[in-house]
């Protein structure tokens, strides 16, 4: 195929699009709905993952140390823990740091501050705060700290068991994504069917032209090409419109999402800005692939 032929195929495809503008708009509209569903699915996935990560980060195991545990002993236990494959970080909190944190937290409560002053010693214990790489590892880490090896230094091991919350959230996220995916696939199938029939209707209008093209020796690509170009246009326009409303929508949505997720640590708009290229490619390829696949199916039998 020469550049001349490619140029003519593109030119005829654009002409087809305009000549059947209402049919083209119908196909573009359905593609638009599918891409909207995809956009929603994308937002749910991104926000869901951020929430899960934020909650996971809140979980830790705290090993309170006995008073016999010297700083050296505490650091030795810390080094041991850091050697484990499932441990992400270990923070050593001294008695003094614990007291300072306690005071900071309860500074406004006069009863507590007075009670502290009455005490001869610092009543708080030093501790090791352990963060695991995954929520599943906490019970094992806690069990390890309770082992006889650390008995003299570790008085108590606590961990806020958020695994239930995490698991529940993961299930909700998985289910939502699954439903979203099913809806997207259903809409994609509808989009393919509508585009397929739209192109078939258009082909019906071009049947004379196609017949003559066959008779005068047009190659199959010359016959199919303009319809595929029309498909690319429909998919491309649907993607442009989707991106056109998606980004302002994310700007509006972002502060509301931040209020709930990760205590304001997650900004949806920032995520969107960082992934602008990926998101653009995603919507363009989804729109164009959907549309071209259906156009292809529709014209296949017309180009013998």
């Amino acid at each position, binding site marked *: 195929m020469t550049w001349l032929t490619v140029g003519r195929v593109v030119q005829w495809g654009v002409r087809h699009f305009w000549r059947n503008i209402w049919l083209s708009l119908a196909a573009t509209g359905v593609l638009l709905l599918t891409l909207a569903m995809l956009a929603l699915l994308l937002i749910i996935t991104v926000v869901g993952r951020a929430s899960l990560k934020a909650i996971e980060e809140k979980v830790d195991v705290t090993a309170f140390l006995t008073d016999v545990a010297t700083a050296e002993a505490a650091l030795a236990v810390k080094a041991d823990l850091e050697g484990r494959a499932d441990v992400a970080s270990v923070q050593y909190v001294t008695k003094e740091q614990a007291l300072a944190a306690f005071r900071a937290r309860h500074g406004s409560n006069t009863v507590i501050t007075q009670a502290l002053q009455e005490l001869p010693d610092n009543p708080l214990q030093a501790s090791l705060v352990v963060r695991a790489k995954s929520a599943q590892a906490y019970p094992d880490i806690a069990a390890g700290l309770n082992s006889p090896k650390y008995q003299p230094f570790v008085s108590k091991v606590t961990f806020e068991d958020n695994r239930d919350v995490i698991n529940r959230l993961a299930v909700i996220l998985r289910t939502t994504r699954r439903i979203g995916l099913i809806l997207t696939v259903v809409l994609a199938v509808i989009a393919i069917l509508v585009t397929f029939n739209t192109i078939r209707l258009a082909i019906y209008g071009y049947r*004379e*032209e196609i017949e*003559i*093209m066959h*008779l*005068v*020796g047009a190659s199959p690509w010359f016959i199919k090409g303009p319809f595929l170009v029309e498909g690319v246009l429909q998919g491309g326009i649907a993607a442009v419109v989707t991106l056109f409303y998606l980004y302002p929508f994310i700007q509006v949505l972002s502060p509301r999402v931040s209020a709930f997720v990760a205590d304001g640590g997650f900004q949806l708009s920032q995520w969107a800005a960082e992934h602008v290229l990926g998101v653009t490619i995603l919507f363009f390829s989804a729109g164009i692939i959907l549309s071209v696949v259906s156009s292809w199916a529709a014209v296949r039998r017309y180009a013998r």
Partner: protein
Amino acid sequence: MILLQNVSKHYPLRGAQNGLKEVIALDEIDLTIDTGEFVSFVGQSGAGKSTLLKMLFADEAPTSGSVNIDGWEITTIRSWQIPYLRRQIGVVFQDFKLLPAKTVFENIAFAMEVGGERTAEIRRTVPQLLRLVNLSDKADQYPWQLSGGEAQRVSLARALAFRPKILLADEPTGNLDALHAWDLLQLLLKINKLGTTILLATHDEALVNSVKRRVITLDRGRVAKDQATGTYAL
């Protein structure tokens, strides 16, 4: 050169009754047509004239036998080769097959664009073709503004766009009055004189008789007569 050897074409009959399962359109035809010949195919409706012409531009495949047209073997031709074959064979149809939304000029240019001809070449060739068929003044008119004879001449000009070595005309005068039919015949003779092989399928007795060239009479799918300078006689 066109060579048909033992060519048969059978169409399956749907809902066949009385044991008849297929229609025999062509029955063991053997023919040789030399380059530059003007051959008229005559015969009643259903004799196989159109089927024979359709085979020559690969619109139909023979059920058995061999069809060779200027080195192209129709029985084994691959689908991707068909466009190339068709650019070497011009075809004129009874119903003209012009695009109503395109002007005379555009109808001819369209065929050339489809065939991958350069735009400059199209701009140069189309006026020449229109001159050849005496339609230079109708270039900007639409098919519905033309008489039957004019429309058929546009169709002829389009068929000649790729300077074919062979021109097939399937009942080209079927929709024309005697005067226009005569005009068209003179054009076909002129084109033949320039070296193009012409195969004409027709019912038009006066036309065939006036040509005084080879006439092949088909009857129920068989060659009933093959005369070097024949007349229309069924």
